[in-house]
């Protein structure tokens, strides 16, 4: 409750800062517009009011973005190509498919790495190193290469989403499968448990907190991948395509609306995983 108040205060503060910034950044542009239309008798009040309601502002005011979001999300039918719901669904589809594939592969590889020593020693350093490499740079190339094979539409973007979520999930799950302490592993050995049994009864449940943490990182990464992929191949729509279209035509309000839609999507995904994690935590009672 207390932190809700604190969060609300900070959010209100940020919105206030945003309004001030919008007024300051748009004022000179608006002054030019007044000058062009031959108006010289405007007051400071007029200037501020007008610069917060420009059609193509440098920085749209919060209420303009909110109005645009309302218009494009609720007031436009979701089948229309202008609707953000339409584009959001495209992005969400790519993200979810890619995320499912990427995290399944990541978990699978983590299982292999933990159970096979030579894989761990030869491959793990590369996977860890991949975390330091801007792998997103590969995105445009993957789109084009898949295009050569006539793979278009959702698939190339889902592929990029998959491979962006793959590495963090692998690293996180290897850590998770290794998290049981040596005492517990020894106990399993005294029970003469097989490797598979140790895995199912000890390593897998112990990795649950790591699982949800890596799912969150992976989902966020998948969405970034999908959005960036849409920028490189924008004719099929999606929130990234809206960003690019907005930047081509100087439609700042549209860019911000698409940005907020993407942010909401990401927050919803991560939030859902967080809720699932808390439920699992309570069910499994693994909090110390």
């Amino acid at each position, binding site marked *: 409750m207390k932190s809700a108040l604190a*969060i609300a205060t*900070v959010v209100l503060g940020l919105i206030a800062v945003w309004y001030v910034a919008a007024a300051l950044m748009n004022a000179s542009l608006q002054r030019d517009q007044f000058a062009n239309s031959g108006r010289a008798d405007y007051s400071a009040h007029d200037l501020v009011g007008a610069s917060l309601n420009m059609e193509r502002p440098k920085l749209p005011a919060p209420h303009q973005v909110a109005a645009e979001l309302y218009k494009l999300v609720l007031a436009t039918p979701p089948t229309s190509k202008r609707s953000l719901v339409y584009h959001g669904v495209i992005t969400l589809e790519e993200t979810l498919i890619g995320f499912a594939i990427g995290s399944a592969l990541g978990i699978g590889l983590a299982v292999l790495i933990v159970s096979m020593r030579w894989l761990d020693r*030869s*491959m793990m350093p590369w996977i860890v190193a991949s975390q*330091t490499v801007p792998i997103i740079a590969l995105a*445009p190339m993957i789109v*084009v290469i898949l295009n050569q094979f006539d793979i278009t539409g959702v698939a190339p973007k889902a592929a990029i989403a998959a491979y962006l979520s793959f590495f963090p999930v692998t690293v996180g799950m290897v850590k998770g499968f290794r998290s049981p302490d040596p005492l517990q592993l020894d106990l399993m050995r005294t029970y003469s448990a097989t490797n598979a049994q140790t895995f199912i009864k000890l390593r897998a449940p112990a990795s649950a907190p790591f699982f949800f943490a890596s799912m969150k990182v992976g989902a966020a990464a998948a969405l*970034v991948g999908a959005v960036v992929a849409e920028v490189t191949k924008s004719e099929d729509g999606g929130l990234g395509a809206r960003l690019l279209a907005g930047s081509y035509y100087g439609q700042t309000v549209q860019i911000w609306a698409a940005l907020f839609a993407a942010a909401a999507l990401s927050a919803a995904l991560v939030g859902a995983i967080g809720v699932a994690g808390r439920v699992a935590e309570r069910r499994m009672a693994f909090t110390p």
Partner: protein
Amino acid sequence: MTLQRLRDLLPPLAFGLAVLAIWEAGVRLLHVPAIILPPPTAIAVRLATSVPTLAADFRQTIQGVLAGYALGSLAGFVVAILIDRSQFLQRGLMPIGNLVSALPIVGIAPIMVMWFGFDWQSKAAVVVVMTFFPMLVNTIAGLASAGAMERDLMKTYGADYWQTLLALRLPVAMPFIFNALKINTTLAMIGAIVAEFFGTPTVGMGFRISTEVGHLSIDMVWATIVVAAVTGSLFYALVAGVERRVTFWHASYRSKEA
């Protein structure tokens, strides 16, 4: 010690070479066209023959990376110190910072290009926003991580707020701060490269990738990716090396030395 190191290095090296060999052999035997996947040797040749272009791209992109990285990390750190005394603000900012860290911030690239122009300044601006929140969140968490016992000890010494901060809480926060610095190296590279997809002067690694993909000269794309990968790894290694110097007392290093 060095022998042990060599032994640790051998399997990944062998693995890497094996992947390259299979790639080379596979591409040549199956006659995969070079516009889909060029063999590693072709990429190496391209890399060697295009040094001036690649160097120019590197110079252009690294400016945005470094300026944004320094400014964003510094700003996150300073804000964390500024709100350190206000529990209220921290409680409000922590969840927001955590949330923002999960958002697709690279999306602000077109806006920054509009505000700051095509040159490296707009890329630095994207990087500033991307690196700010991880640093803020980690510094706040790090400053909170000093134990009650140690704080009590500082109190019995009669240390004031700043003395406690400098002598106890900041050193204890260092592993967290370096964690953010390491995360930020990757974010800075991603931010600068992706921002270049939205518009640059005709130079830069992101620009090179998106245009050469358009020309289907995939070997040049791979050469640029090699440069980006090596840059990213070196940047990370540099920060990790500094970390080792600064937080030599931390358990994760101590145990290895012993």
